[in-house]
């Protein structure tokens, strides 16, 4: 009953999206408000139908209805309710259903919010999101039906993917990532609408910025949460392996970040229209490409889904989306060409442009690296691997340059900077940065990457602190406010600038934490008889006892657990385990992570001998890892602060002053 309901909801959802797409196009061409309203209603209805289908799936999972193939393959009677619910997105078909739900949620939200505004743009936005809906529902009607039934229904299911039911983070990281991923359809939709209507003006830019940053925040959190999940679950002591699935999430993040920066120049100068539109198109195409790579089974990855019939559909979607949007962009280029002269070579604008080139450089490296095994294969070359040494070798210098620009860019004036102001701004931070590097060198740090990162981070931090202090002082003097009050008021009245500082501060923390944790971690492997100890960097670990028993919440799973006590900078007891799932040929590690502000103690069980009670463990001491998550959180917080609606400000959709009249351009023109 319920599966049939779900399937019917999907079929009607497809019809609703097809109708919406036609209604928007016809409504826009005839100027028929009734048709446009009907299109909006159809989008809301499609969201409702996706919700019904998702709920039908969740209930089927919770009630272990094995007549549904998806449930039989990804659930078992012993699966705890929490993991039953999150199984909605744990495998291919369910994740597409969840994806559809989120995409239409975004679509409905935007269509509702702008129901009375942007009358020229919104029909085409509606058409684009409706077409995305058509694609997603079609995938679920034809190649990836989540409600395919099997009869007779098996008595017991296969159970969820062992790797994915091992940690509650699976309930957090995929939704965040998917919310961000699907949301990046919105800037694309606005971009398409702008190209069709030839309206790439300031109002458009403001809307696109907002609807890029909101999903971008979720995507950022999703990427960081994914790194955290992989750290807590995979048991190799690291958090980022440049796996295709990680790269797939990173690629649209990189281009979206580039857009967020270039849009400020575009807004300020009224230029870069082709560039901005190109970036939002690229971002969306990269989200489909990433989905395709991880779901078609054509690249090797930690959690690629099995090879399936949906691959060609996604490939088709890539070709259609890329051809249509790039074609549209090329067609409109004559209308979009900037008439303004390029900005001055030393100015905030040019720093943002260099930032964009570097972000695109990162995008190129990551995309090329991910596709390289396929490219070599297509040309009949050897099977090759592309991994951490390649990506780090190329990306670390680019990241370092970006870090440098992050300090320099926001501190440069718009328009044109004089040598004198540059010197005044950057001399002291530069000295501090070099001094910090020298100090670290003197204290025994020897690797180039963390030294450079540290020096750059201190430089950037000093520039930012200087900016904030100067701003607060200037305001404090003129308005007679105490410096903290002045700083807060300045920040809440310049949300974008100060939110940017907070986000950059988060990036700084992450950069330092990544540089140090990736180069200064230590690890050792030890086989310990009961009562025996091993030590690493001030820690002593003792094998207390080995326990082999079924897991209380799921008796089909056998847990082999080493209970250990540790002493050193932190002390206490920990348990690190290997879990044998009936549907997994290899045991799944459950590392023990003891986090402190300075370092993590991380212990993975590799092997054990039940007869003697001896255990083989890999012990890591990973410095500063927790600061990566903290930095990621600050990054998201800063971005949220930057776009938080300000009651004092006129809604973003009001026509902004034309850039030529903007007072900030005066210094450039007055010279």
């Amino acid at each position, binding site marked *: 009953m319920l599966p049939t309901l779900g399937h019917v909801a999907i079929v009607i959802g497809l019809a609703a999206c097809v109708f919406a797409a036609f209604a928007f196009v016809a409504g826009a061409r005839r100027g028929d408000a009734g048709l446009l309203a009907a299109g909006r209603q159809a989008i809301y209805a499609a969201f409702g139908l996706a919700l019904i289908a998702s709920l039908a799936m969740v209930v089927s999972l919770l009630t272990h209805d094995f007549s549904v193939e998806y449930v039989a393959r990804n659930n078992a009677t012993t699966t705890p309710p929490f993991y039953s619910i999150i199984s909605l997105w744990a495998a291919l078909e369910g994740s597409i259903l969840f994806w559809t739900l989120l995409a239409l949620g975004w679509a409905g939200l935007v269509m509702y919010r702008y129901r009375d505004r942007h009358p020229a743009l919104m029909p085409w936005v509606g058409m684009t999101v409706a077409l995305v809906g058509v694609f997603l529902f079609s995938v679920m009607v034809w190649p990836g039906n989540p409600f395919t039934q099997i009869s007779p229904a098996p008595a017991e299911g296969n159970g969820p993917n062992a790797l994915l039911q091992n940690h509650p983070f699976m309930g957090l990281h995929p939704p965040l990532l998917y919310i961000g991923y699907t949301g990046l359809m919105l800037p694309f939709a606005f971009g398409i609408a702008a190209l069709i209507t030839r309206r790439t003006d300031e109002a458009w830019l403001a809307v696109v910025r907002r609807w890029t940053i909101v999903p971008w925040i979720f995507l950022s959190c999703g990427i960081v949460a994914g790194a955290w999940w992989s750290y807590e679950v995979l048991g190799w002591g690291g958090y980022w392996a440049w796996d295709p699935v990680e790269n797939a999430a990173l690629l649209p993040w990189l281009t979206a970040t580039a857009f967020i920066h270039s849009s400020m120049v575009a807004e300020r100068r009224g230029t870069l229209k082709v560039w901005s539109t190109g970036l939002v198109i690229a971002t969306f195409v990269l989200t489909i490409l990433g989905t*395709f790579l991880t779901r*078609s*089974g*054509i*690249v*090797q990855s930690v959690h690629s889904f099995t*090879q399936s019939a949906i*691959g*060609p559909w996604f*490939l088709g979607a*890539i*070709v259609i989306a*890329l*051809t249509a949007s*790039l*074609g549209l962009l*090329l067609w409109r*280029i*004559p209308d979009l060409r900037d008439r303004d002269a390029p900005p001055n070579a030393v100015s905030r604008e040019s720093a943002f442009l260099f930032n964009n080139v570097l972000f695109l450089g990162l995008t190129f490296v990551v995309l090329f690296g991910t*596709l390289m*095994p*396929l*490219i070599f*294969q*297509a040309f009949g070359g050897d*099977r090759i691997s592309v991994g951490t040494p390649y990506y780090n070798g190329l990306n670390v210098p680019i990241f370092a340059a970006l870090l440098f620009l992050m300090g320099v860019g926001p501190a440069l004036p718009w328009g044109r900077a004089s040598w004198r102001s540059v010197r005044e701004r950057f001399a002291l931070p530069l000295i501090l940065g070099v001094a910090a590097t020298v100090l670290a060198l003197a204290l025994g740090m020897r690797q180039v990457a963390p030294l450079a990162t540290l020096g750059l981070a201190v430089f950037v931090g000093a520039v930012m602190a200087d900016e904030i202090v100067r701003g607060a002082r200037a305001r404090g003097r003129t308005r007679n406010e105490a410096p903290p009050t002045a700083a807060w008021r300045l920040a809440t009245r310049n949300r974008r600038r100060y939110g940017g500082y907070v986000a950059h501060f988060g990036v700084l923390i992450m950069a330092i934490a990544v540089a140090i944790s990736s180069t200064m971690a230590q690890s050792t492997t030890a086989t310990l008889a009961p009562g025996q100890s091993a030590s690493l960097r001030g820690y002593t670990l003792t094998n207390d006892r080995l326990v082999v028993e079924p897991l209380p919440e799921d008796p089909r799973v056998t847990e082999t657990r080493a209970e250990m006590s540790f002493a050193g900078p932190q002390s206490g007891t920990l348990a690190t385990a290997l879990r044998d799932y009936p549907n997994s*040929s*290899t045991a799944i590690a459950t590392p023990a992570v003891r986090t402190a502000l300075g370092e993590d103690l991380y212990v993975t069980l590799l092997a054990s001998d039940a007869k003697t009670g001896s255990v083989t463990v890999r012990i890591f001491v990973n410095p500063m890892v927790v600061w990566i998550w903290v930095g990621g959180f600050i990054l998201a917080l800063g971005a949220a602060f930057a776009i938080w609606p300000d009651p004092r400000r006129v809604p973003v959709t009001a026509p902004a002053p034309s850039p030529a009249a903007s007072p900030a351009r005066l210094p450039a023109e007055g010279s």
Partner: protein
Amino acid sequence: MRRLRWLILPLAVIPLSWVLLTGFSVNPNEVPSALIGKPMPTFTLRTLSGSTLSSADLAGRPVMVNFWASWCGPCVQEHAVLLDAQRRYGDRLAIVGVIYQDSTDAARSFLDHHGDGGYPDLLDEGSRLALDFGVTGPPETYFVDAMGIVRAKQWGPLDTAALESKLAKIGVSG
């Protein structure tokens, strides 16, 4: 001149879709062997039954080297094919099993349970031989001709069709 910008479209779309399309035809997990056309690695190892086997003992005969483990699921299905191969070709072909990262007890009980073909199973302490063959994970099978040259590799479990076509490459047929 302005129209040249339209070249971007095919230049972006066609190579990308071609590269992605070719991806469908290949299993990304399957790694072709670098040993094809090269001599088989040499070894002298103890067998499960306690004797010693050296690669020199196999000279002049076609050899099929099968890496397996008791913990490897597909190895169970494959085992029946191997037993059948030993029955059909045992007179012309030397089959050698190599136990991959497994305890001797577990390997023995696997053979007790699924049947022992009577061919030697090597104990590969420290996985030295597996590294020499370039094994990525069991089951994997290497086909060596009578001259001692590796001619083919099966990645994943053997079925009868794969067995026959690969044996043909080392001159064992019918």
